[in-house]
């Protein structure tokens, strides 16, 4: 009967360079979510508006009767607005349990006992969410721009609206980072992913409802900054060079978003710790 050596053996695997450990968390999280059929279904449904818009661009480029469907910068803005509901569902599905599940399983201590800093842990978790959110915002919007050039057979629209690509990029990243930071902060506050999801829904929809009531009371829309979705809408209009829809200056909306991201960072700094010191 062979006797195997159970003694100490050095680690012979590859060692990630310092500062790259977040990639491990991100890739593991992405793989886990891609293994869920329900999530894949949600991603597929999120791409349906893209196909509708692609057909619209095709029809406008090839059928003279459908010339009124010709793409405009407003179309790209509206497309990103349509994606907001999918951004919400994907954020809840993919983001609610990102830290909450680790807290529930007491895995945070195990994570942080490895050569992994808190910043890398948070960044890795954020990368999971941003990957999927960009997949339903920035990627389809950019592909739509490519589709337009391909179907039109020229660069006229692209060149005359050269600001569209940076606008799509800036808005998509702003939206994704804001939403991701808010969801991660909420996820770090509880052990229950379900509770986190409801908190996030409340943050969005309740602030919208409060603003609508205040709009009724004040007779104007200058208080739209209290609602995160309306802040993003206002900034989206500013980035796409469209008339602003609310009376709030876009700078104030930007300040509200920056304040939210900073607050989320502070919450994460406080809540993501290997040990909790109870005074």
């Amino acid at each position, binding site marked *: 009967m062979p006797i195997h050596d159970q003694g100490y053996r050095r680690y012979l695997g590859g060692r990630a360079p310092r500062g790259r450990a977040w990639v491990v968390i991100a890739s593991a999280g992405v793989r886990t979510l891609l293994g869920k059929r329900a999530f894949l279904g949600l991603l597929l449904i999120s791409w349906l508006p893209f196909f509708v818009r692609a057909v619209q661009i095709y029809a406008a480029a090839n059928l003279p009767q459908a010339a009124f469907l010709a793409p405009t910068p407003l179309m790209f803005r509206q497309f990103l607005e349509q994606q907001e509901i999918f951004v919400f569902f994907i954020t809840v599905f993919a983001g609610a349990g990102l830290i909450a599940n680790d807290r529930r399983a007491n895995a945070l201590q195990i994570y942080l006992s490895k050569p992994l800093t808190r910043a890398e842990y948070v960044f890795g978790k954020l990368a999971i969410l941003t990957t999927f959110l960009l997949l339903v915002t920035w990627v389809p919007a950019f592909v739509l721009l490519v589709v337009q050039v391909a179907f039109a057979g020229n660069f006229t629209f692209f060149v005359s609206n050269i600001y569209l690509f940076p606008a799509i990029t800036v808005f998509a990243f702003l939206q994704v980072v804001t939403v991701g930071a808010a969801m991660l902060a909420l996820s770090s506050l509880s052990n229950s992913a379900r509770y986190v999801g409801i908190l996030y*829904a409340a943050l969005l929809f309740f602030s919208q409802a409060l603003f609508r009531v205040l709009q009724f009371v004040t007779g104007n829309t200058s208080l739209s900054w209290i609602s995160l979705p309306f802040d993003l809408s206002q900034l989206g209009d500013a980035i796409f060079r469209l008339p602003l829809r609310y009376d709030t200056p876009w700078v104030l909306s930007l300040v509200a978003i920056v304040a939210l991201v900073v607050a989320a960072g502070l919450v994460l700094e406080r809540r993501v710790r290997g040990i909790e010191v109870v005074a």
Partner: protein
Amino acid sequence: MLWSRRSVFLGLLLGGPVVLAAAIRIVTATTSLWRLSINGARVGGPALFGMMMWLLYIRFIVPVLGVFYGTSLIADEVDDKTITYLFTRPVPRGAILIGKYLAYVACTTLLVLPSVILVYFLVVPLGGGSIGESFPALLEDLGMLIVGLIAYGAVFAWVGARLKRPLVVGLVFAFGWEPAVLLFPGYLKQVTVAYYLQALVPHAMPQDSAVSILMQMFREVPPVATSLTYLAVIVAIALWFAARAVELKEYVLEQ
């Protein structure tokens, strides 16, 4: 159900409208900064109360409470791995769900109604509104909210008993399916709770956004008796399926 840290959420949710109503009352009483108006025309407190009912309670608080508590009736026990203790008692499994559902209805009703009443007394007197005149509408509101909590709770209790991760499905139903389907003409809206619930609301639907205006355009209001009948059928069917799901389903506890 109430003595948990999650009740903070419930407190914020139901305290928010009260704080807002108090702030509006104080500001309108002490300054002339805020004036109640729709398209420039001055309106009274009852109209503001009707708007708060629509925007805060009917479209948000009632569905959210239904999703939150309805889906967690069984899912919480599974997550906490305590469902085994319940199932080993000499009680039919379905009865456990029904008992927890009744506790949900009692708790949420007893918290939502005081919040609405406080908002009513704070807001209705504004702009010369009469509490006595609009009191019957308040009673209708309270009845409608109870029916809404019962109906949404039953539907989401079923979702929670049937699915492993019920929250996303609940949110998709409450904030994706229902608002979307109500925008379309035809029969599809009859597969929602909101269609029947909104028929019980005594206030005019606010036209606060393009979506609301569209909703108003395609709005068909079924008679109150029909709505109540359909809601009763929805509750009965949802609870029956929920109890059956609990009876038949084998809940696997994560290690």
